């Protein structure tokens, strides 16, 4: 989780990712951010994030992202 | 709940009525009036204001409504007549006008000018409009529209002229407001008076044509007109007005003569009767021989009236009070119009 927060903070230092829960719906992350993020995440956590996982529910908050990472790691 | 629903339906209906009323008002405003300019556009509709029936009905293009004066026929022979003419009236339009006219009355004689035999397909949208828009809605009108439409036209815009004339919003003039709900009568029993004079000079010979035969379509409509007249016991008379132009070819003349002979119809080619009628193309035309002016039309009508009295069962109705009252009034209008136009001409 810390690693994830570090990645997010590097992208948008002005956002408090521990409480933000509308990253997509609030238009904080745009599609270019998302793609950079997916690259970083698959690198850092050695997971494959298929395109169908890129939906607002998985990207709206750091917690949702973390849940997705764990799920994909589990398979 | 129920009353609420009811009032909603009523309100919607009220608004639909408002739209319909708006459409009616707008149609009236935007439709061309043809009252001061291009008066020939007003001719067809004026027929419905007639108060008597007619012994003679003329059908055809500008060669009838510019060349025959019903007033002369009345004053000098007591013959009641009406011209159902319109600009560049095509032969199928003539047929349907005849069909429609016969629904309103049964004249003794129908006179048809044969120039339109030369056109076998729809020509121009504005001319179509001037012939068709004035007709009252009837099967004849629908038939005429169907036969007349050029490729760009559609039936709907004849039924709802607003669809055609809506773009006139930028060209509206005082005339459109003045004549929003009414029309003046611009013709004298379908005759459009012109008192100008422009002598005919250098009338061009017709250029040779590839094919002089009239097309089957035209013959068919001519047949149908002849049959319709026969059915109604009407004497059908063919004429060719004495207009020097459009050129009337000998080959055309032959075909019409043959047809008339075959069907036993009278045919008068006034181009060959110039001496008899006394026409003088230095003084009797207002546009170099295309159309006669008032003086020419009166000469022609005088001759033709005599012919009608002699060769057809027309009646002299000058002693019949019902007719005399109305037709003498028409004569007064005619005289007043002549006086006004001549004054205008002399002032210019």
């Amino acid at each position: 989780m810390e690693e994830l927060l570090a990645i997010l903070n590097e992208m948008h230092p002005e956002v408090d990712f521990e409480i933000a829960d509308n990253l997509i719906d609030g238009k904080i992350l745009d599609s270019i951010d998302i793609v950079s993020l997916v690259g970083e995440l698959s690198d850092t956590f050695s997971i494959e994030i298929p395109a169908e996982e890129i939906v607002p529910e998985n990207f709206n908050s750091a917690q949702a992202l973390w849940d997705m990472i764990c799920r994909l790691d589990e398979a | 709940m129920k009353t609420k629903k009811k009032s909603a339906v009523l309100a919607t209906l009220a608004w639909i009525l408002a739209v319909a009323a708006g459409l009616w008002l707008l149609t009236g405003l935007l439709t061309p009036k043809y009252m001061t300019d291009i008066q020939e556009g007003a001719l067809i509709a004026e027929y419905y204001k007639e108060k008597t029936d007619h012994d003679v009905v003329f059908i055809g293009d500008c060669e009838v409504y510019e060349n025959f004066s019903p007033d002369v026929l009345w004053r000098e022979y007591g013959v009641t007549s009406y011209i159902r003419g319109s600009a560049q009236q095509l032969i199928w339009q003539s047929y349907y006008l005849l069909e429609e006219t016969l629904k309103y009355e049964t004249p003794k004689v129908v006179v048809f000018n044969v120039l339109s035999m030369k056109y076998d397909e729809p020509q121009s949208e504005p001319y179509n409009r001037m012939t068709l828009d004035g007709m009252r809605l009837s099967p004849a009108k629908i038939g005429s529209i169907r036969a007349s439409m050029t490729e760009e036209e559609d039936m709907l815009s004849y039924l709802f002229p607003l669809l055609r004339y809506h773009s006139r919003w930028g060209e509206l003039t005082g005339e459109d407001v003045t004549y929003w709900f009414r029309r003046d009568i611009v013709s004298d029993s379908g005759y459009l008076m012109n008192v100008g004079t422009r002598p005919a000079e250098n009338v061009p010979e017709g250029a040779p044509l590839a094919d002089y035969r009239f097309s089957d379509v035209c013959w068919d409509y001519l047949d149908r007109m002849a049959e319709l007249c026969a059915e109604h016991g009407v004497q059908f008379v063919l004429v060719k007005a004495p207009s020097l132009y459009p050129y009337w070819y000998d080959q055309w003349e032959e075909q019409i003569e043959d047809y008339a002979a075959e069907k036993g119809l009278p045919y008068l080619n006034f181009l060959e009767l110039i001496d008899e009628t006394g026409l003088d193309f230095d003084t009797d035309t207002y546009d170099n021989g295309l159309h006669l002016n008032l003086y020419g039309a009166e000469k022609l009508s005088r001759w033709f009236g005599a012919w009608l009295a002699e060769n057809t069962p027309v009646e002299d109705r000058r002693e019949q009070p019902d007719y005399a009252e109305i037709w003498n009034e028409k004569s007064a209008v005619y005289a007043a119009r002549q006086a006004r136009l001549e004054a205008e001409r002399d002032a210019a």
Partner: protein
Amino acid sequence: MSFASARFLGFLAVLFVLYYLIPRRHQWKLLLAGSLFFYWFAGWYCLIYIGVTAVTTWLAGRKVGSLLERQERYLAEHRAEMSREERKAYQAAARKVRFRWMMACLLLNFGILAVVKYAAFVVENLNGGLALAGAPGLPVPDLVLPMGISFYTFQAMGYLLDVYRGKYPAERSLGRFALFVTFFPQLIQGPISRFNELSPSLYAEHEWDSRQIAMGAERALWGLAKKLIVADRLAIPLRALVAEPDKYQGVYVIAVIFLYAVQLYADFTGGIDITIGVARMLGVQVTENFERPFFSKNTAEYWRRWHITMGTWFRDYVFYPMSVSKPILNLHKKAKNWLWGFGKKLSVYLCTIILWFVTGIWHGASWNFIVWGLLNGVVILVSQSCEPLYAKFHAKFPRLKGTFGYRLFEVARTFWLMGLIRVLDVYRDVPLTFRQVGTILTSFHPSVLWNGSFLELGVTAGDWVVAALGGLAMLGVSLCSRSEPLWPRLTDRPNLARGFCAALILLTLVFGVYGIGYDATQFIYNQF
């Protein structure tokens, strides 16, 4: 059948009456029949194309869907016996099988699209090369583009991709699926609907709902008015301006940029309003395709608000899959540390450029659209990269951001920037466009604005006034829907709504550009 034709009105009237008279369980069948009739009207050959797409996609969807079901059931039943690695391996293998079926269908359908839409373009360019080499050219194929092929192909393929991804199960009934592909209000120019969004209301049984029907009618009339009064009117001077580029330079080019923005907006959103309105009258909810795009403050936002369904389609089915594909991720890994960390962005940049290249080509098979797409991509990337600079700027002038004046500046900047790029699609010739835009700087004669030159473009002063008032009305409606959608609010005031409709009918009939003297211009997006 153009939306702005008496024929369509008649078709719609008959369909509408029948729709609410027949038993409700048959309503969707009537919609299908109507849609097929509508399509048949555009040419019987069109039915073959759309039929092939509907049937093959339905079959592939069924196959992929049942494979997925079986694979998931197997995995659920045997979960306990399998190790994590085994599970992953099974999933990968299962995915491959599904992928093959999906791919076959994708290739077939995009293949059809490519052939009818791009064959001529490819051969022409090939011939250009051959001519340089002195070889004789190939015959240029002359295929008629079936109506709306880009839209329905994308819609159908989106469905298949979703089924493949397990977003929702495949549709069982061919008839229902065919209705999804052919639904007539959106055949001509979209929007590109998603199956899960459109299908519930598309297949549902609808009873008469005055409110929905009124709302739909208001919207459709408004769309028709926009199209006939504003779009088709402005199309006349635009045609004149573009027909003689040598004569109309400088200020005229600025006029072209501005007029085309308004014209395209009126035309395209007008068409979409008709689509959404007509669908709503039939009880069907179609996704919005525009969200007042000219109020956007930057290019990326503009593209989230203009032709939304196309943007999200490309995002979900092209941009994301491409970004998470192996080659791109590998590139990302490798380039990460290049150029002091700038390399980290390389893969994203690459994907963005490819995305906009494809978007450009989707709009049309010609270079102007390709350049148009690439320019959009470049502008988006540049403005993204400049964000730190903006941040610094705003840190220095903290009071500026968010003020009305500054927001207005941002909106105007985006409007003109997008207009400048869009002008490629007016002249339809890349070098000519650049030359024309260049003349803004070289031959600038503002006097043409008031010396009457604009009255010689085929429209009168009255026409300009009508177009301007129409444009203002559009602006007004946009402003009114800023906080919440306008149409429900209008419908809640029944007499205002009825008056609005009555006025629109009369105004459109009088001031609409239609009939003799005007060619009824087709919706611009029709051929895409």
